[in-house]
């Protein structure tokens, strides 16, 4: 055992990170790497969102097949760093709180724009905003009160987000922009994504009506995304509050934050809500990037983000690397076999996610893979779910090895073990 500890420690020194104490790896250094990777991922997301903004500006200035295709490409590129940042969401309360504005899903798109009543339906009378169509209506009613939607601006979109307490009333973030660029996917589990014409943004030869308001919506939502990502870049920067909170707290609390983020994304969010549910229902509406048919990439980069946080090594959009001591080193110092097992499980997940990407790129996209009766496609998705489940089981072993169990559940000012109080 001792021998392994020494190996891990010297490895850390060789990486130039130093401060490897008797326990093998300095926890503060691990937290610093974690914060550095977070900062890099949000900065990459911000850069990509600004490129998206440029492309969207060009689309609105000169609507056409080419500018629309360029904007779609910029959106897909913007998802790459952002999805990798989701590994930070669940452990860090301030990220989780913020996330709803940026990546909320699923959304009832009829709140934003016109929809095809045949596939979308109109019968949700009990969500009064199900087909409210902000773009077509300068005056709206929310909860019996009038809302002036005459000007489509950041304030209006913020106000209408989750209007009436209905979570599917999503007006901002990546998926709202995705709907603006692609339009509704009316193909069910058949081939094809949304197919919005560029002329929907053309005020001179307008299709779909209200092209000026639709263009304003797209510009506003993209601008908001840039603003929101800026908040996260600042929060994780050298003087950022999120970084400071993490580094000033007890080191084990910080390590538990990392583990919670990886575990909750793997198990509950990705394997559960975004994959298993859709597979159980065989429903394209449960596809995460449903308008663009980009779900395979969305899932792939979520998993990738989990892997690179564990390893402490992130390749940025520009090809440079951010790396340092990581959770992997802490686990290796305590139990190298477990670290090896964890790395193998993460590789298995990436391989299974790779199959989804390859299948999608081969013409059978995610909503077709989860379709009823497509047993081969279903099996591919199930394999990725199983791999995520397996990697989380290993992660739980890591929690035990690092003795983080009690840290994860700490919280009361007045109580550590309530069942002991009554005695």
């Amino acid at each position, binding site marked *: 055992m001792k021998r392994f500890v020494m190996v891990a420690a010297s490895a850390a020194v060789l990486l130039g990170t130093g401060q490897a104490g008797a326990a093998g790896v300095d926890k503060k250094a691990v937290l610093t790497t974690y914060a550095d990777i977070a900062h890099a991922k949000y900065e990459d997301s911000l850069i990509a969102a600004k490129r998206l903004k440029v492309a969207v500006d060009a689309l609105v200035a000169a609507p056409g097949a080419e500018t629309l295709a360029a904007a779609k490409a910029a959106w897909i590129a913007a998802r790459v760093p952002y999805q990798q940042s989701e590994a930070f969401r669940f452990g860090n309360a301030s990220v989780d709180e913020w996330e709803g504005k940026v990546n909320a899903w699923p959304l009832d798109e009829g709140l934003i724009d016109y929809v095809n009543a045949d596939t979308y339906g109109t019968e949700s009378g009990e969500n009064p905003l199900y087909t409210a169509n902000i773009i077509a209506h300068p005056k709206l009613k929310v909860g019996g009160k009038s809302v002036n939607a005459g000007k489509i601006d950041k304030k209006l979109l913020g106000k209408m987000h989750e209007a009436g*307490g209905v979570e599917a009333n999503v007006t901002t973030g990546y998926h709202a922009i995705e709907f603006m660029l692609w339009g509704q996917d009316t193909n069910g589990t058949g081939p094809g994504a949304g197919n919005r014409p560029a002329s929907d943004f053309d005020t001179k030869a307008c299709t779909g009506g209200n092209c000026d308001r639709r263009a304003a919506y797209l510009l506003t939502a993209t601008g908001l995304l840039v603003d929101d990502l800026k908040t996260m870049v600042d929060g994780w920067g050298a003087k950022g509050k999120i970084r400071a909170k993490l580094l000033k707290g007890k080191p084990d609390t910080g390590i538990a934050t990392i583990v919670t983020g990886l575990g909750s994304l793997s198990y509950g969010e990705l394997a559960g809500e975004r994959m298993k549910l859709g597979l159980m229902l065989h429903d394209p509406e449960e596809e995460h990037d449903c308008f663009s048919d980009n779900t395979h990439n969305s899932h792939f980069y979520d998993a990738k983000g989990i892997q690179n946080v564990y390893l402490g090594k992130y390749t940025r959009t520009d090809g440079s690397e951010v790396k340092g001591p990581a959770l992997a080193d802490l686990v290796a110092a305590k139990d190298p076999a477990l670290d090896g097992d964890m790395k193998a499980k993460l590789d298995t997940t990436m391989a299974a996610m790779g199959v989804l990407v390859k299948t999608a790129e081969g013409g059978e996209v995610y909503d077709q893979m989860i379709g009823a009766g497509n047993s081969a496609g279903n099996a591919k998705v199930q394999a990725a779910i199983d791999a995520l489940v397996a990697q989380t089981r290993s992660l739980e072993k890591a929690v035990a090895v690092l003795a983080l169990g009690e840290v994860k559940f700490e919280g009361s000012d007045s109580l550590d073990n309530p*069942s002991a109080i009554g005695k």
Partner: protein
Amino acid sequence: MRVMIVSLLAGLSMAGAALANGLAPLEPGEDMPGGTATHAKVINRDAFSHFSANMSFAKEMDFKVGNGFFRRLWVTAPSSTKAADGLGPLFNARACQNCHLKDGRGHVPAEGEEGVSMFLRLSIPPQTNDQKTAIAQGRANIVPEPTYGGQLQNFAIAGHAAEGRMTIRYQDIPVALSGGEKASLRQPSYAISDLGYGPLHPQTLISPRVAPPMIGLGLLEAIAEESLIARADPDDKDGDGISGRAKMIWGQEEGRLMLGRFGWKGGNPTVKQQSADAFNGDIGLSNPLFPANSGDCTGAQKACLEAPHGGDDQYSGFEVPANVLDLVTFYSRNLAVPKRRDASDPQVLRGKLVFTESGCALCHTPSHKTAQRADMPEQSEQLIWPYTDLLLHDMGDGLADNRPEGMASGSEWKTPPLWGIGLTQVVSSHSQLLHDGRARNTLEAILWHGGEAKTARDKVVSMPKTDRAALIRFVNSL
């Protein structure tokens, strides 16, 4: 362990100082109302949507998938999405979440708005001896209205008529309080317009119901039944003016009489049965506990009974198969109670003392210890602070709906838990309380208390206004 001793000591010393100041002591654990299941996340409109903090990663998957079904919009059968069709034909909502908005409390519809998170229950008095016996024995809650069934569904799928609309009128009742303060209560009266299936039975009884918040349900379920029943005092033998009756109702899966813990009158004994009942009555979905594919349709609604349904063979004939019901049940059991924000504030502790001394705590029992439940590790052996005894109390004429439900009379209501009550505004953007949302704030809710609670209510009216303010602050701190 050492931390605990320190906190106990702190609690004790505070208790000594506190009594001298007219403050109640801060008790160990009271800031964590759900025990270790309590969440300490940011307080915002998602505050009721987090899972039990003591849950393992493995269970998060079930929670999230359960949440997926909870928010799922069900569609008319037949549809290409076989796993989520079978809506209605009559319904109050297309998704669980459309009533339990943000997992929080429902609200009275705004003027001109269709009611969603509030509806009317319907019944008629028992007509036959069999019906009387079934109700007396706890085997049935009600006799459904012959045409419209057990509740008024104000929506229907295409081609079918909705049953009607709830209309509400309010009349203001001024109340004078000590210290020159005034309050105004709004007394509601209910009617049904636009009846879709002809006249109602002449003896129809109606009871308005707002969707209750979803937090802490599994913890309430985990309190040992015998310890709750032991608190009942139906004949007020201890002479404190408070009776407290255990509402017993048939547990369909368990096959025995059980304490009715859920619903405003304790209509169902378990989270699962409550969820299954809501799937069937509110959304019109069959499930293993309530197998009617047509939901609440009656024999007088033939087209409704004959409409296509979503009970496919691949899902064992149910629109909501057993595994989906289990996932939603698991989700509903594990919505965590938020940590209290200011439990140690002096005004809050003063209010806590006033709460106890006024007799509020006689029914709103502050704490319980949950039992060991092998199937519910997150809820097992927790010290919890729900502020309810889960028993029925006569609440007087003012609150009476005059519609008996099972063993509950027309003026009895089950003590609702108070945890999370102060976050209603944050989560649900309103502050309406009570079974029909008539109270617009905590003070109004207190003033509506009558019957067994009249003594406590009168104390609140006459107490110094600083104490009244402290009491309200305390309740809102929960």
